[in-house]
């Protein structure tokens, strides 16, 4: 009985959180007139989707610093499909994710055999390679990137408009915000289900001891490729969304620093908690934004705070609130 009541509690609180994000936040922003916050919050939502991908790879015990590569790839796939083939943005969004997932299967098959720092280093280099590729390939238009990508068009089914044309909206920022929040909710719902499903349990076994898991019949090679593909899918979707919001994509849109940040988001939130990436992204992004007033000392203060946080809470922010929660810790 207790279990069902906690479950209901969770569903209710998740629903409340979503309602707060979709209704209360726009109202508050309207009241205070700070419509620039839309862009900030949209970025947080999208970055937390991308970071959630990194979290999945952490879940199978791999340190992924290559998420920027897939975000960049997703952005370019979506931009090229929209610009060169005139596809609807909403169609390119899953396509970008699928393209990244397919690419990650190809890349992942050899590199997922590596572990620990080796995997971390290879993925780090992957980000740099994605940037170099974007510079070198003819279709990506080199260093000048792809600019003035049209805003997403509408979707209508049997004459009913499901999603309005973003270009006709009075406030496309709000529309992007809502889309991003919905995507984020979907992503973390899926992540929660994944972490608590049979596959999630198997992934945890991978994290603890791959040899042991494989000796009792877990198909580790298959599982880790699946997990990596899922992770890259999220990266691609997030990147495609970003390209659409900023209406442009450059080789430097996602760099090594971004990849490291995605990893930091996960660390900061806490690797043992599904909501870790979301909280970590929120804190890091807003912390960075708040420090903007300090000018040249921004990076100094930011990194000092990070170091202190790491010294005080080496297991992530959520370890403060949920110390006894059954997480990934051994």
């Amino acid at each position: 009985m207790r279990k069902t009541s906690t479950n209901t509690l969770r569903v209710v609180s998740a629903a409340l959180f979503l309602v707060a994000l979709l209704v209360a936040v726009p109202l508050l922003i309207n009241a205070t007139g700070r419509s620039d916050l839309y862009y900030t919050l949209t970025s947080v939502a999208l970055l937390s989707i991308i970071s959630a991908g990194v979290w999945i790879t952490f879940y199978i015990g791999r340190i992924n610093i290559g998420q920027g590569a897939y975000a960049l790839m997703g952005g370019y796939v979506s931009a090229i499909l929209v610009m060169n083939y005139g596809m609807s943005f909403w169609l390119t969004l899953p396509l970008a994710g699928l393209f990244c997932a397919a690419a990650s299967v190809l890349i992942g098959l050899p590199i997922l055999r590596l572990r620990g720092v080796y995997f971390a280093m290879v993925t780090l280099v992957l980000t740099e390679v994605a940037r170099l590729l974007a510079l070198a390939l003819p279709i990506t238009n080199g260093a000048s990137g792809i600019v003035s990508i049209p805003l997403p068009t509408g979707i209508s089914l049997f004459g009913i408009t499901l999603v309005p044309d973003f270009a006709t909206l009075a406030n496309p920022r709000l529309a992007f915000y809502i889309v991003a929040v919905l995507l984020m909710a979907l992503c973390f719902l899926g992540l929660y289900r994944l972490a608590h499903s049979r596959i999630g349990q198997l992934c945890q076994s991978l994290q603890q001891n791959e040899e042991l898991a494989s000796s009792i019949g877990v198909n580790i090679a298959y599982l880790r490729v699946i997990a990596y593909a899922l992770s890259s899918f999220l990266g691609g979707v997030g990147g495609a969304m970003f390209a659409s919001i900023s209406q442009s994509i450059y080789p430097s849109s996602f760099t090594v620093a971004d990849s490291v940040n995605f990893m930091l988001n996960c660390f900061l939130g806490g690797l043992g908690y599904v909501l870790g990436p979301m909280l970590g992204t929120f804190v890091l992004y807003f912390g960075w934004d708040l420090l903007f007033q300090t000018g040249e000392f921004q990076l100094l203060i930011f990194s000092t705070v990070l170091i202190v946080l790491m010294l005080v809470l080496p297991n992530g922010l959520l370890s403060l609130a949920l110390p006894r929660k059954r997480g990934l810790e051994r």
Partner: protein
Amino acid sequence: MEQVIANGLYLGAQYALIALGLTLIFALMNVLNFAHGQMYVLGGFVTYTIYGQLKLPFVVALVCSGVTLAVIGGLMEKFLFRPVVRRSKREESTMLLAAATAFFLDAVMLLLFGEKQRGVPKIISGVFVSDRLILPYDRILVGVLAILMIAAFMFFMQYSKPGRAMRALAQDRVAAQLMGVKVERYSMIGFALGAMLAGVVGGLLVSITGVNSGIGGPISIKAFLMVMIGGAGVVGGAIAGGFILGMMESVGLTVLREYGDITYLVIFALLMIFLSIRPHGLMGKPWG
């Protein structure tokens, strides 16, 4: 062709020194030091200040670079990495710390030295010219110094007492502790030594390529590449990786020149193939 090989050797000697520091820290602490490139840049700036601004002899500047970085590395180990390693549930947490220190060093250098490209006057002028080879004398000197330092480092690790202790630590931390090796002390010495190597290379190279506060990240990436080629945590591997990367870069820049800036793409593709055959690099142990 001789020119390409000479360039490769010169680059490789630099790279091997950078990779040595990184691999030493990794072997002792199991920490992937993201801040290694930043340490290199800091070493460069110290030499720039002392040799370029204060006009003291180059050797003094180089020693100062090494000492400054050794002190910084030692302090970082004692007050940052050691507590986090002890208290964290997952050893990857040190990576966040290392990344944060990388940001921190970047910020400090940006504040202290600005974002301009800095260079110093040549240590020796003149160019060595033969019928097939053109090499400036300062490059030759820097290359020879780097090779001498690699040799000194290897002798130190092989025959001195701290070197032996550190090798024992790298092999098996617990066993080393049981044999009476002061683990904490030698971890600190090792970290300081690794940082010092980075600083010294930075100081050496500032006399040729100059330095600016933005190159720390790319240098770290190159160091990671070398360590991957050679195998993490192995001294011989780092040296081999450094020379191989230097050679590939030198050859690639010449051979692939007409195809544009794709040397690193090719290197990475080769690395992927190589790693799928040998996941632990040339000499790495199957852990890490």
